[in-house]
């Protein structure tokens, strides 16, 4: 059984690099960070304000993560999404997958993000300069 952890967080995301049972069979660790970019629709911004239906987002995200971890037979999957104000250059989304094999970990990270962007109730608004 994969270790699956999802969390909607306020404040800076500190990537938990210790996730996953030591001595597990992982041969591949893939980490993704989504970072707030300095331009939104071509205009410079200070950051993004993320709005979130937290209870629903956690349920949806957990379902996505559990299904993805099972499908790709991962050792572990961690998904953190920051909400509230996120300044330019800071991480809004952090995903980490551990697996025996590279392709499974890479595809799992991509799949989680695709589904998150489709179904998890989070919205953003640019905060101008």
């Amino acid at each position, binding site marked *: 059984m994969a270790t699956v952890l999802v969390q909607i967080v306020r404040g800076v995301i500190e990537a938990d690099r210790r996730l996953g049972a030591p001595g597990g069979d992982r041969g591949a660790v893939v980490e993704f960070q989504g970072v707030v970019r300095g331009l939104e629709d071509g205009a410079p911004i200070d950051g993004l304000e993320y*709005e979130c239906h937290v*209870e629903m987002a956690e349920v949806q995200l957990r379902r996505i993560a559990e299904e993805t971890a099972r499908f790709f037979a991962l050792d572990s999957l961690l998904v953190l999404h920051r909400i509230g104000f996120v300044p330019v250059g800071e991480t*809004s*989304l952090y995903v980490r997958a551990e697996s025996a094999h590279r392709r499974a970990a890479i595809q799992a990270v991509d799949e989680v*993000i695709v589904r998150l962007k*489709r179904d998890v*109730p989070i*919205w953003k608004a640019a905060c101008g300069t």
Partner: protein
Amino acid sequence: MRVSFRLWSVMRVAAGTARVEIEMPSGTPVRDALDILIDRYPELSRHRSSARVAVGTDYVDGDRLLVDGDEVSLIPPVQGG
């Protein structure tokens, strides 16, 4: 019964409120409940076709019959990541 609507993002901004409570007959389908909401907040109508609906923490379709105390979220296209 009392149905509690939660409005998010552009729909919250359009309506000028994040929560709306409306009395309606028990067993009203979601799609009829939205008609009632939009009668009250016509500025939501242009978002209706792009929004999905959730009851509690799950997406539902328009046939779903509401019961007393249901919390109905209107979910415009999400933008996480």
